[in-house]
């Protein structure tokens, strides 16, 4: 498929965009929570269940072989998407949260001991906080937190001062889910490696917006969720460097992950199967594959320019509304805006926007420590995706102005 970017054609690819909410055309701006699915993804899942459904990696019969081929093609599609060297470095998980728990468990068991330090940042999602806290409780390791600056950017001086020879792992989001800030992960990985630390990048909010190259980044682990890149829920990807994955013990036991089982001793299968026990989410893999193919069929430079236009239009429009404060104003941002309205609770703003057909997220965005930093129970977050257009932004601005008028 040749690269293309025609916003009107793209909108036709997503059937849900054409429904109404509360009597108005849907304006879906909750893409940070989950993205809508193009027809190709819906058809791929439908087609899989209609034509190939079977278990993978085991059957000699034709359906099983076809399903296995589709599932392994999905792995190859994800390898290309991330620029990984080998398909067996690409593991299927349930999603980003599952991936991080896998690393915290398996990497943690092998490489983390009492007194070691794990470094995260103040802007992390709970999924990139809690698994590390649990690991620290298990092992006696210490969790260290990189500060942020008032505009939402990571405090690189704080990072420099916290990184040391005891740091065994840096776990950092590529893009902040609550604020949309893009972190300088390439530079951070370089610095972490000089201290011998490994780096896990939470790419859940990056993969939907720009191309990722794990080899160029030199990331040790990189993870993202299928449902945030136009694929189905319940499937995600964990990339890990081959040598690291080989050195880690399995995360969960079961079928498929074994080489030989006896009651005396079980030996484990090779990558990637060692980390994929049980019947995987085959339809999810097939859907994800179609989603990644869809994204790879778009011109990424044009896509980024389009999302930048949406962000700029929305930001400038919000700045014209009295009482609006944008949280997270650092220059390097994905198409996400978090904001507060003076004197109004985010829930009230979100409710009035919903009445006008506008879907946004309100609340703490699973980032309570970050909300504590800004001393707010939550924010209103509008997150734009490739299928949003300038008309969506205009509708959002009109609706927000109306909500502000009603709540003033």
């Amino acid at each position, binding site marked *: 498929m040749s690269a293309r970017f025609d916003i009107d054609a793209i909108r036709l690819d997503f059937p849900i965009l054409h429904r109404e909410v*509360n009597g108005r055309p849907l304006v879906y701006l909750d893409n940070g929570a989950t993205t809508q699915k193009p027809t190709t993804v819906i058809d791929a899942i439908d087609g899989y269940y209609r034509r190939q459904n079977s278990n993978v990696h085991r059957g000699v019969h034709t359906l099983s072989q076809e399903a296995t081929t589709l599932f392994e093609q999905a792995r190859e599609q994800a390898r290309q998407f991330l620029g990984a060297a080998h398909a067996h470095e690409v593991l299927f998980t349930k999603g980003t949260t599952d991936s991080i728990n896998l690393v915290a468990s398996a990497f943690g068991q092998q490489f983390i001991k009492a007194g070691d330090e794990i470094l995260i940042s103040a802007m992390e999602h709970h999924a990139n906080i809690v698994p590390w806290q649990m690991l620290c409780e298990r092992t006696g390791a210490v969790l260290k937190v990189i500060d942020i600056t008032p505009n939402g950017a990571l405090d690189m001086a704080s990072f420099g001062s916290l990184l040391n020879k005891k740091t065994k792992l840096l776990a950092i989001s590529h893009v902040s889910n609550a604020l949309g800030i893009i972190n300088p992960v390439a530079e951070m990985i370089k610095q972490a490696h000089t201290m011998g630390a490994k780096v896990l990048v939470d790419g859940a909010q990056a993969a939907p917006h720009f191309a990722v190259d794990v080899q160029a980044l030199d990331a040790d682990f990189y993870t993202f969720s299928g449902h945030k890149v136009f694929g189905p829920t319940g499937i995600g990807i964990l990339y890990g460097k081959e040598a690291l994955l080989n050195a880690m013990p399995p995360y969960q036991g079961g079928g498929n992950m074994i080489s030989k089982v006896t009651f005396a001793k079980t030996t484990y299968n090779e990558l990637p199967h060692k980390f994929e026990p049980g019947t995987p989410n085959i339809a999810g893999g097939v859907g994800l594959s179609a989603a990644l193919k869809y994204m790879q069929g778009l011109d990424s430079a044009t896509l980024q320019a389009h999302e930048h236009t949406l962000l700029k239009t929305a930001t400038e429009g919000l700045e014209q509304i009295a009482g609006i404060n944008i949280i997270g104003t650092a220059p390097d941002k994905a198409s996400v805006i978090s904001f507060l309205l003076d004197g*109004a*609770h*985010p*829930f*009230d703003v*979100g*409710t*009035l926007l919903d*009445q006008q057909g506008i879907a946004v997220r*309100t*609340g*703490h965005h699973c980032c309570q420590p970050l909300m504590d930093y800004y001393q707010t*129970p*939550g924010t209103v977050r509008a997150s734009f995706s490739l299928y949003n257009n300038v008309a969506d932004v205009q509708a959002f601005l009109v609706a927000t102005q*109306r909500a502000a008028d*009603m*709540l003033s």
Partner: protein
Amino acid sequence: MATINQIQDEIIEEFSFFDQWMDKYEYMIDLGKKLPLIDSAYKTDGHLIPGCQSQVWLHAESKDGLIHFSADSDAIITKGIIALLVRVLSGQSAQAISEADLYFIEEIGLSQHLSPTRSNGLVSMVQQMKQIGFSLASS
């Protein structure tokens, strides 16, 4: 004193005049703004019904066989809905509260705010109001 169902019917009647969503929500915002619903002494963690989105505080007092509720929230629309719930249930007998069928919520088009999937504390608040009624009615 009007019964729970008489008050519910009054509210349904009032809301029937709103044909625009804006009028309805402006009315609820107004209700939310007007009412200092709870004595600040009761706005404590002990009275807090935590929700993922907005918080609700609830206090109940029993006087002469009737239960009096006061409540508050940090979100104004939630507070408006609370004002309606307090209007319907406060000052009623424990028995009547525990048996109340709150059909007005559906009738005035606010059921989306009280569906179990909403994490605004309102569902827990209604459950707790009825629970208080139930435990006092059976004591």
